[in-house]
């Protein structure tokens, strides 16, 4: 195999053994970072068979080839018949059962082919066998089928085996005609899928109730319905995935930062994997810092959240087969924002948002501070409180650290057990949990009541965070802080917090500093960080995200609110 490609005006020639296949091509092109072009032959079979060949001229051989290739898979349907429009010419309709609308195929493909005829009459009254036709005639037959017989919206010609497989597996009906080296593909996709439902992980009291589904097309359509503007570009990002999973990116052209868009494309292009089942796989493959507990890519199943992110200048990444859409770049403070913040009065939202920050600190530090206070800094508690805690700890056999660890782990066990249980069993789990964690442990004198309160408030606080990915990182870091507190007291906690801050400040999400707009500090972006100002004061987009197209709304609204004379 050999090839040629043009890169910055330099012609590169390459040739290699076919056996290595385009895997090598992929690698070469990846090095050259022009992957977009390189993996166009991504519809490779898992066995790396080479299928860049033209179709056979015979119907039998074509059918034989495809059914061999798929190992005689039972979901491959082959319907052979004779073309009415062209005498006794043999034809076949191939499709994957379950991926297409069977009724439509019958009504709009098989029926017209078997019965329909052109207005111009039969061009082959003598019913010559197809294989005797010249290539010119083959072309005119196909054109006739396309133009006059098949009432299908999307119809395309297939010339090679790669395209054949591609179309067949993605829900097209392929029409093969005996004697023709070209086939037709009619798009009649139709399969059972979940309808648009209320997102279960991000419910709101007020706000849109639709959530993404598993179908990438439905998902991009939902976004398109919210932003009816030609500047919203939804681009299919070719990536090396043997399962053929589709990945698309969407952004506002002219608003999203070019360097971010390029970075997203580049990193997606680096992917070379057998299958993508969920967006988290993509997330792990394309995030820049491999080892951090913090999420540097946000995800959501709410179209309105994605629309808001895109309007702010972020890039959305859709992965087929999952309702979770990713948004980059993500910043730390973004994980404290919930969709509902913008659907509630701004003053209430601001208070709630501050509450979330408080809860973050509680969820992260409450058990460690309790440990530090009770084992090192007893003098920092008010006397009466100290006596009260001391009286509860009387008879508890473990040090505070072990006590806290045991309770936290018990809680994590309960949580994990509760998640996967069916609802009916889940109730039983929570009853056992309440009794074990709450009452029995205290009454048996194994843990103190104060510890139960600390663990409870910690657990509840971690549920306050609107982003599940952030509460996961808090859950993990909590244990590190507990160990620090147990060995160094408040000193350890302080050092830990400093280390955490440094780590957070060192993170970047797609070229944007993770802690912005706090570090680097952006005054104009504070309107939507710890508080949310009313909509009429949100004049500008986040500064770092979009750098050039900053204006969000005209000044007239704000001038009207503040009763300023209009500007000239």
């Amino acid at each position: 195999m050999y090839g040629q490609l043009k890169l910055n005006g330099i012609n590169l020639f390459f040739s290699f053994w076919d056996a290595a296949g385009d895997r090598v091509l992929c690698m070469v092109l990846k090095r050259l970072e022009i992957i977009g072009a390189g993996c166009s032959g991504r519809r490779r079979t898992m066995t790396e068979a080479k299928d860049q060949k033209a179709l056979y001229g015979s119907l039998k051989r074509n059918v034989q080839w495809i059914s061999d290739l798929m190992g005689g898979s039972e979901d491959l349907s082959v319907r052979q018949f004779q073309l009415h429009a062209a005498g006794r010419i043999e034809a076949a309709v191939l499709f994957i059962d379950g991926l297409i609308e069977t009724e439509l195929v019958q009504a709009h493909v098989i029926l017209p082919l078997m019965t329909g005829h052109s207005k111009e009459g039969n061009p082959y009254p003598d019913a010559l066998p197809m294989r005797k036709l010249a290539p010119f005639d083959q072309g005119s037959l196909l054109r006739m089928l396309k133009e006059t017989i098949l009432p299908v919206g999307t119809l395309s010609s297939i010339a090679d085996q790669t395209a054949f497989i591609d179309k067949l597996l993605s829900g097209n009906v392929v029409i093969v005609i005996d004697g023709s080296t070209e086939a037709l593909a009619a798009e009649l996709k139709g399969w059972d899928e979940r309808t648009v439902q209320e997102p279960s992980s991000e419910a709101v009291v007020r706000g849109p109730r639709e959530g993404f589904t598993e179908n990438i097309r439905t998902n991009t359509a939902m976004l398109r319905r919210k932003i009816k503007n030609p500047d919203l570009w939804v681009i299919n990002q070719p990536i090396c995935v043997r399962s053929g999973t589709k990945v698309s990116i969407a952004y506002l052209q002219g608003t999203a930062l070019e360097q971010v868009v390029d970075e997203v494309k580049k990193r997606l292009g680096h992917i070379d994997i057998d299958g993508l089942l969920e967006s988290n796989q993509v997330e792990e493959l394309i995030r820049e810092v491999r080892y951090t507990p913090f999420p540097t890519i946000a995800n959501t199943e709410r179209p309105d959240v994605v629309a808001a992110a895109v309007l702010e200048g972020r890039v959305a990444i859709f992965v087929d087969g999952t309702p979770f859409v990713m948004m980059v770049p993500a910043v730390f403070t973004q994980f404290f924002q919930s969709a509902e913040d913008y659907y509630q009065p701004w003053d209430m939202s601001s208070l709630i948002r501050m509450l979330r920050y408080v809860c973050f600190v509680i969820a992260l530090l409450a058990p460690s501070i309790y440990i530090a206070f009770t084992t090192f800094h007893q003098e920092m508690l008010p006397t009466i409180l100290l006596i009260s805690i001391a009286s509860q700890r009387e008879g508890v056999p473990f040090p505070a650290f072990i006590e806290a660890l045991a309770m936290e782990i018990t809680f994590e066990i309960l949580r994990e057990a509760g998640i996967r249980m069916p609802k009916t069993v889940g109730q039983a789990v929570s009853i056992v949990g309440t009794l074990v964690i709450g009452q029995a442990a205290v009454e048996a004198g194994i843990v103190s009541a104060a510890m139960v309160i600390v663990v409870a408030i910690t657990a509840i606080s971690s549920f306050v965070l609107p982003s599940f990915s952030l509460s996961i990182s808090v859950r993990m870091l909590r244990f590190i802080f507990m160990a620090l507190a147990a060995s160094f007291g408040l000193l350890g906690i302080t050092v830990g917090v400093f280390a955490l801050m440094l780590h957070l400040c060192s993170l970047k999400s797609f070229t944007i500093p993770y802690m912005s707009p706090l570090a680097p500090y952006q005054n104009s972006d504070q309107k939507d960080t710890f508080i949310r100002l009313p909509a009429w004061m949100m004049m500008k987009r986040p500064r770092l995200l979009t750098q050039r197209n900053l204006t969000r709304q005209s000044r007239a609204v704000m001038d009207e609110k503040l009763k300023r004379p209009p500007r000239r």
Partner: protein
Amino acid sequence: MWKRRGLILVCLACVLLSTGCWNRRELNTLGISVGLGIDRSKEMYNVSVQIVNPTQTSSKSADNQAHVALYQQKSKTIMEAMRRVTSVSPRTIYLSHLRILVISEEQARDGIKEVLDYLSRDHEVRADFFVIVSRGVKASELLSVFTQIDTIPAIRMYNMLELSSKFWAPTIGIRMDTLLKEQGNKAGRSSVLSGIGIKGDKEEIKKDVALKRINPPGRLYFSGIAVMKNDKLIGWLEENDNESYSYLVNKVKFSSFEFPCEQGGNVVLEIMKSRAKLKGSFPNGEPAIQAEVNIKADIGETHCPENLLDEQTIKKYEEAAGEKLKAQLEETVKMVQREYQADIFGFGEVFYRRYPKQWRKLEADWEERFRTLPVDIKVKIKINQLGTVNEALNK
């Protein structure tokens, strides 16, 4: 790379984790001491430590034991005695939450410097506890009474002093930090300490049956201010003098003050604010003090049939009350000058601050000068409000 990182990690873990926790103390290994009593017994200090019994303070596990336990040991030094206490106490003595230090009158008359040395030197001890002198009883006795409502006696005494000194001028609480500051004062200031004694039956209230009675057989009470000269107790101030002292050293937050009116009967002022200003001067080359006390007050109670809505009446009251308070203040100052010659009001400080050069001359015989120091006192009382009724009910 990975090997090296792993090695560094292991080293860090070893170094950090093996040094940690050296001063880690679990709560149930601590004897939280809230009260410390110091008695004199011949040449030895008899130290008694009042330790909270945590099992009894929670309602669940309480089984009628006393809420605190008292452990005593004798030694020639306080620290030695404190360490000795561990031989009789089940837990290590933890002093950070000390609420009250009781020094027996006998010990106070002997001097308190040695006692303060240990407590100010120890890093664990804070300086926010009250220092009191047990009047008429031993310190250990004061720490072994049963008290109602606040069942831990040390905390009970602490609350009593804290609240009473806020709402009642004659009560004064002296905390450790104030005491240390006054003891180290270079301007000849003498310190005072609050005294607490037992009223009623000393023996009966050491029994737990005292708790079961509505009117206990005896109780703790604030009993005057101990005047210290240098570090030795030399005498006591009683109620009116306590009050005067409070006004002059600016320790009054709220209080009440009664005075008779012309028609007979009394009027009581609720003191809302009191500010005292001390000034020094040298008329005829000799030092003299001018004290000005400004008071804002409301009418709190009246037994006089006069019309309170009349401005003249209010003015009359203001003057009458001022006169009475002034006379009281003067009497107290005179008494202290005459009997104790201890500068508890901080007159020396006024000169030390304002006239440092002259102070150097005064310093040498300040004690003598203090005795004859002319003190001119002015009292200004302003009555602002009459309360929720205007006229006297017995009109």
